[in-house]
């Protein structure tokens, strides 16, 4: 009897706890979501971009072939692809596409659109930039035997290929639009995504409304959304606190989190994760004196990363010290090895003495230069302030210049800078993705340091084709060593992601990358 009573009490307690929760999780249709975007995209073209500002702007309008399942990250699932198969030799990927999908202008979506999109990604026509061109270099041919089947044939085995197909940057464009003008995605939006473009008011917002013909039935839940550009963190936090915006999906600093918890209490949802994102110190290797390896190495050796990470993690989103692969992930260089590389020594006094010696040897004892940086307060400003301080300690005078995202990126792409704070905006831990940035500039628009180094290219290729994890790790570490010894560019710190949302916002999923899960299809408002 006692057991029965306890059992009944247990069942009742379970129902009481689960009942309202299950009810709260039932999505509600309708409503408008206002959320903050803390940078404004320089253009609309996902293929040419490397900033989240473009994805938070464009993702709701577009679909991709595959995507990440954020409930089981890093598992991959279909988006426009209903299913896929990989041949036993891993050289042929066959995708079956959803039927009855339409672009927002009414054009039916077919396999020809996938072919046109991936042809543009791997072999961009003149006047088109494909930032991740190198990641598709292994594609030999793309065949479209019928409107719902597309076959990718590879030249060589590439263990990262499914990850590349799931990249959020591979927005699928209409073949018809690309045939008329391959540059049109920079200024015109026509996708198959859950929302239809309404307007972009520069300096103010982007707006979208529900795509009534979206191919995933029942989605999206929202009637509309508005992404409001709030470049000042304080303005964004005030808007979140006041309910003018209900979320900011990129991330905030620990201090901002604490302030908002105090202000909003139980109305605020806080989610945290390590972040597949780092800031890098970047030298324009075409501009003297940064064409001298001694100068580059000296500047990297003067940075006290270990001390800096302790302080900066209290006031910014910067946290972990690491090499070219996210610290803590399986292929990352362990700390014991990392400290042997230039720029990562824990004996900062000795490192700075060596840095001064190198500068003297290079005839650059009174070096002065401009550090080019983005005017996003978090974490670019703390990183800039930190670097200026670190370099002053070896007698180097630095002018810190911050600018809006568009001129900042334009200056780096055109080589109109001396030293810059760059970012590596990843969406998974696959090393091929993070290492692409370091390939020689001749075939790689992502290489903003503008060097060509065959040794780095060789190690990249070796790790790409290697299926043995231990050997692959060796090649990655060899590439890292070469990169840091030459001092072309080097990660400064890896980030820590903290996302604040109003508890009314439901259905959005947290991940280690702010580039993922931004199509808003499953987001709804619990009002």
């Amino acid at each position, binding site marked *: 009897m006692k057991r029965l009573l306890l059992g009944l009490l247990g069942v009742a307690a379970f129902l009481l706890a689960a009942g309202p929760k299950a009810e709260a999780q039932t999505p509600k249709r309708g409503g408008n979501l206002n959320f903050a975007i803390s940078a404004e995209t320089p253009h609309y073209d996902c293929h040419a971009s490397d900033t989240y500002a473009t994805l938070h702007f464009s993702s709701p309008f577009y679909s991709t072939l595959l995507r990440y399942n954020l409930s089981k990250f890093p598992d991959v699932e279909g988006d426009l692809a209903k299913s896929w198969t990989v041949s036993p030799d891993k050289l042929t990927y066959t995708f079956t596409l959803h039927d009855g999908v339409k672009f927002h202008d009414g054009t039916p979506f077919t396999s020809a659109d996938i072919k046109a999109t991936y042809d543009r990604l791997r072999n961009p026509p003149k006047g088109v930039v494909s930032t991740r061109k190198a990641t598709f270099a292994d594609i030999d041919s793309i065949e479209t035997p019928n409107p719902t089947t597309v076959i990718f044939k590879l030249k060589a085995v590439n263990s990262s290929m499914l990850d590349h197909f799931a990249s959020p940057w591979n927005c699928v464009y209409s073949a018809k639009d690309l045939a008329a003008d391959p540059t049109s995605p920079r200024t015109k939006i026509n996708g198959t995504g859950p929302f239809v473009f309404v307007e972009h008011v520069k300096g103010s917002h982007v707006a979208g409304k529900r795509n009534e013909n979206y191919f995933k039935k029942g989605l999206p839940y929202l009637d509309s959304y508005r992404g409001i550009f709030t470049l000042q*963190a304080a303005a964004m936090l005030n808007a979140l606190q006041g309910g003018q915006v209900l979320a900011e999906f990129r991330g905030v600093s620990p201090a*901002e989190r604490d302030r908002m918890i105090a202000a909003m209490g139980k109305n605020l949802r806080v989610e945290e994760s390590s972040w597949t994102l780092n800031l890098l110190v970047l030298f324009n290797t075409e501009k003297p004196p940064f064409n001298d390896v001694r100068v580059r190495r000296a500047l990297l050796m003067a940075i006290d990363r270990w001390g800096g990470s302790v302080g900066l993690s209290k006031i910014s989103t910067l946290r972990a010290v690491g090499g070219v692969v996210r610290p803590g992930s399986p292929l990352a260089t362990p700390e014991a090895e990392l400290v042997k590389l230039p720029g990562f020594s824990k004996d900062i006094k000795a490192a700075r003495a060596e840095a001064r010696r190198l500068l003297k040897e290079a005839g650059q004892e009174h070096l002065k230069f401009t550090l080019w940086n983005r005017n996003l307060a978090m974490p670019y400003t703390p990183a800039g302030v930190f670097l200026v301080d670190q370099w002053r300690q070896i007698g180097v005078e630095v002018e810190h210049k911050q600018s809006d995202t568009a001129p900042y990126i334009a200056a780096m792409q055109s080589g109109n800078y001396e030293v810059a704070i760059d970012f590596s905006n990843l969406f998974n831990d696959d090393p091929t993705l993070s290492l692409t940035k370091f390939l020689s500039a001749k075939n790689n628009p992502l290489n903003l340091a503008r060097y060509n180094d065959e040794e780095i290219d060789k190690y990249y290729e070796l790790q790409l084709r290697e299926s043995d994890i231990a050997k692959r790790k060796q090649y990655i570490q060899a590439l890292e060593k070469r990169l840091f010894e030459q001092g072309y560019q080097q990660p400064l710190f890896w980030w820590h992601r903290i996302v604040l949302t109003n508890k009314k916002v439901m259905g959005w999923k947290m991940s280690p990358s702010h580039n993922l899960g931004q199509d808003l299809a499953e987001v709804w408002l619990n009002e």
Partner: protein
Amino acid sequence: MANAATTMSVNAAVTLPKRPNPILTFIRQQPMGAVSFVVIFIMMFAGLFPQLVAPYDPLGIDFAQILAAPSWDHLFGTDAYGRDILSRIIYGSRTALVIGFSSSLLGSSIGAVLGIASAYFGGRVDNWIQRFVDILLAFPIIVLALVVVAAIRKTVIYGVDVNLIIAIAIPIIPRVARVVRAAALSVSVMPYIDAARAAGYSDSRIIFRHMAPNVVAPFLIMFTAFIAQAILLEASLSFLGLGVTEPTAAWGLMLSGNAADFYREAPWMVIFPGVAISLAVFAFNLFGDSLRDYLDPRFKT
């Protein structure tokens, strides 16, 4: 004969009234003006020789001292990077003064020339200049500066953003032009101006050598008053992220950025730069007012 001359000169020396010391007169007549001048002098000294006064490097990060409260080690506390706030305020006075003086001098000078030219030429020229002045006056001073600073890119020369100076100077021009024109109108009808015209002097010579010296009083008053405005404007623009950039020590900048995140835990991060801005603006305004009263002939009758 020689003795008589000596006696006369001695008598004359005895009978002539003693010329009062203008500085002492200013202190006696305008004690608040004198106090404000002392504050300005201290600011100028700190701005010119900050390395003699500041206890720490204003850019030096010390993560062991993040958000340290005011103490004997750090009289005004430290900021989120562990930088000494007192040292940053001292070095910040240089930024405030350089931008305040330069923009006010530039704006007041251009405004004065426009005002005198407007009064001197009259007619259509006066009409055109005044309508232009009306258009500029229609915009609030901060809005006009914001538009200009957003429209022109930064040009840094010797650590000073020249375009920021121009952006702050532009809203000053119409205000000075309007006041100086009023003063110049009364000068332009003086007989010596007619005489200069009759003598065939060029317009520029009449404007710069005969009229300008006679409108120096309103010019000086406007110049000092607008230094305060310019300091406030520089602080506002820096606060909005359009002025100088980190890690430069500047008062407005000290109120923005990390200060917005940490002012609850570390109120000294905003109190002391705020007091510095208020004190500087108050001192320049008070000094300008005192100067106006001192130079105004109506107060001497």
